[in-house]
């Protein structure tokens, strides 16, 4: 089910009403279970609307990690002889963690990467003159598999690290894995943050509900008005890049930057807002990333739930930046390449990760990767503006690899930047980015009360009425465009 669909418009109020009606009796433990069961059923309906067959995959992943979590905990807590080596205990827990990793990464590998590896294997042999029959598995990529797989993995790893106690309530755990607002495109929530909220009684708070609605509207606006409008230009320009002039291609890349931002951050905002309606707080996933002053800051503001996941479960275990210069460089490349590959089984995503690693490297080596931890206050100075624009254009060039069909297309697209010709979409091409940046700055979506919450009431009313009218107009006219990040 898409957030920007009529089905969801009907689904949400029904689940919302049923959920809070049940909450009237959740003082009793059984009723809390019933409320979680409702969340679980709603989440499965939400996901099954797309393809019910893949519900079995989520259910399987849920059962495996539920059981593995209990086994790891058992191994962690089992009594061992007083003088025995502690490693006896940890080796059993490690084996169970291995099961979780093998199952989750195995599913991800099969559904997402099997064809990629087969194709590349055949091509590699072909390059040295050994011709093999190209064959591919006819595998459909289940929506959101990368997201819920990482979420369940974090559960097992946190129990292994003794940072989390496993839940013994299967319904609770299943509701955590499949919580519908963030099931298919994040934010990738940690068990330590989300499970306790699902395990305890929720209370409807007026301010939270209002800020949730604000976020939903702001997210819808970014998706339906900004991203879907940009998509029209982007699809045209990227499909026919050989026919357009350099300035038009640059414009196309800028449009894609705003398309992917509007699309993905819009989804996150809707997810966070929807969760708030159910009394559950999800982590912030975007903090105005295009206002970043360098690449390091960009990665602290873009897809925060994924970058912190990789930081906590990959970068730091590898030693992070505190293991000597060369190992830190290695770790940086690992994390960016894996991050790129996480997005999709295509060399373009790996190239995209590599570009970001290369842009990050000078900051790491000069020790300046953490100099912009503060927020930009007030009107930016010229140097700040220069740094922000430079970062934005660097990110935009990298997006070309992300969007292109293959690396050759991406290189050719950039190669055509130098070609002369008229600039298409003249005024519109300027108006769109300027309008979005202004709105983003004005909305201040990361404020506690949600976007535009600092405006006076009557101004808020005017702004929201305008946003809602525009969202209705574009939502119906463009009719249910899918979110880009569903493919990941």
């Amino acid at each position, binding site marked *: 089910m898409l957030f920007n669909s009529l089905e969801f418009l009907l689904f949400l109020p029904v689940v919302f009403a049923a959920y*809070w009606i049940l909450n009237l009796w959740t003082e009793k433990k059984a009723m809390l279970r019933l409320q979680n069961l409702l969340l679980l059923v709603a989440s499965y309906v939400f996901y099954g609307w797309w393809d019910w067959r893949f519900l079995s995959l989520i259910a399987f992943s849920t059962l495996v990690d539920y059981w593995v979590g209990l086994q790891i905990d058992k191994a962690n807590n089992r009594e061992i002889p007083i003088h025995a080596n502690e490693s006896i205990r940890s080796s059993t827990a490690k084996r169970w963690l291995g099961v979780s990793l093998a199952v989750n990464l195995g599913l991800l590998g099969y559904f997402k990467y099997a064809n990629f590896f087969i194709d590349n294997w055949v091509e590699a042999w072909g390059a040295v003159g050994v011709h093999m029959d190209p064959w591919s598995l006819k595998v459909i990529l289940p929506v959101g598999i990368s997201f819920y797989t990482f979420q369940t993995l974090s559960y097992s790893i946190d129990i292994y690290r003794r940072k989390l106690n496993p839940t013994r309530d299967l319904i609770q755990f299943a509701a955590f894995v499949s919580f519908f607002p963030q099931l298919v495109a994040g934010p990738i929530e940690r068990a330590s943050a989300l499970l306790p909220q699902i395990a305890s009684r929720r209370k*409807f708070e*007026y301010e939270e*509900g*209002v800020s949730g*609605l604000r976020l939903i509207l702001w997210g819808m606006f970014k998706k339906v*008005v900004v991203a879907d*409008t940009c998509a*029209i*230009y982007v699809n045209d320009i990227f499909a026919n890049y050989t026919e357009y002039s350099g300035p038009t291609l640059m414009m196309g890349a800028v449009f894609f930057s705003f398309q992917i931002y509007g699309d993905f951050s819009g989804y996150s905002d809707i997810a966070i807002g929807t969760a708030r309606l159910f009394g559950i707080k999800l982590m912030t996933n975007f903090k105005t990333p295009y206002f970043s002053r360098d690449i390091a800051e960009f990665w602290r503001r873009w897809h925060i739930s994924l970058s912190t996941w990789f930081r906590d479960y990959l970068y730091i275990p590898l030693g992070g930046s505190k293991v000597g210069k060369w190992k830190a460089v290695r770790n940086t490349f690992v994390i960016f390449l894996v991050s790129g590959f996480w997005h999709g089984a295509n060399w373009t995503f790996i190239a995209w990760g590599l570009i970001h690693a290369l842009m990050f490297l000078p900051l790491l080596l000069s020790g300046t990767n953490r100099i912009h931890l503060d927020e930009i206050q007030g009107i930016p100075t010229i140097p700040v503006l220069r740094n922000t624009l430079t970062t934005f254009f660097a990110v935009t060039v990298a997006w070309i690899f992300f969007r292109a069909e293959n690396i050759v297309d991406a290189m050719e697209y950039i190669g055509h930047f130098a070609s002369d010709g008229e600039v298409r979409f003249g*005024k*519109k091409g300027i*108006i*769109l980015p300027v309008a979005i940046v202004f709105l983003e700055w004005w909305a201040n979506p990361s404020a506690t009360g949600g976007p535009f919450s600092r405006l006076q009431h009557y101004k808020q*009313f005017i702004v*929201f*009425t305008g946003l*809602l*009218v*525009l969202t*209705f*107009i*574009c939502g*119906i*006219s463009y*009719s249910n465009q899918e979110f880009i990040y569903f493919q990941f």
Partner: protein
Amino acid sequence: MKCFGIRFFVWTFPSAFIFLGLWLGLLKFDESRDNQGLNRLKPVECNSMIFGISRSAQGVNPAVLEEFAPNTGEWLNFSFNLSVSPWNEAYADAAINKVNCSIEPSDSGWFLIFIDPWVLDDNCGAGSNTWLADEWVDVCDVNLISYAFNVTNPLDVLGKGSGDDFLSVICSSIPRQLLSCLSERNFNFSQGVLSNGWLPNPGMLSPQEKQVAIAEKVDYYRKEKTRAPFWPSESNSSQLSRLIKHLKTCFPKSQIMLLRPPVSSEMLLLEQEWFPEMTNWAKLLAREHKVKYTDFNEVWKAKTNLDFNDAHHLSIEGANRFSLVLAETCLVPMD
């Protein structure tokens, strides 16, 4: 929770009203916003009707016919486009229902039926995309809301049928409309169906641009369209015959004509190459039903490519000129 619910409704209902008001209001009260055919589905009382596809929808201005021959009464152009109104069952049903509810059987009106080779070809005129067959459609009195939600979209209504995206509607279409209102200048961007069913084709192309548009369209037809193995399609031609029979039976005083619309010289060459049997077949059909057949590619001698905005769609000026030729040629009492 109660406060939350009240605030939700207070904050969302005005937007919903503004949105629906804009969309439905413009569609209802500004006829030039309707580029699909709402005006053709509204209840109407008339005496004569035109049937066909976009060639006749854009090419025949009923007002010219009414002015030339007032005795023919009120006219309605009930033509749509190739995806909606080829001679499939849905269109034949719609046409029969429309004449039944709009014209008195005792009237002595005119029925001009436009045919061309494409509408009789299975590959082009199967009508599988037609919304005329949908359940919500009532050709005699359509429901505005269901029409709006099923056939149009708000951006198209706001942008006057430009088919533009949000940005283009905001940046160019609406400012041009406002400027047009303020300065009373006619930008000629309106593509709406008028209340008499005519869909003016407002493109303002230079002669060179017209020639390019013609070449591109013919090229597109050559590359993208194919001819079905059997022509004319049995089902399409039987639906056409069904309509003619119905008109002859139920409106005995009326005059029925089969007409082939004019096209640019390049398109005509393509049609002659792909469908050489068209003329003979049309003449046979006319003879079978005892109606007159006229090919306006032969009759309209003054026709030039400048009358067209592409290979087969007449511009506003071209349509007015053709409508006059049509009136002079056809609208004389027949024995």
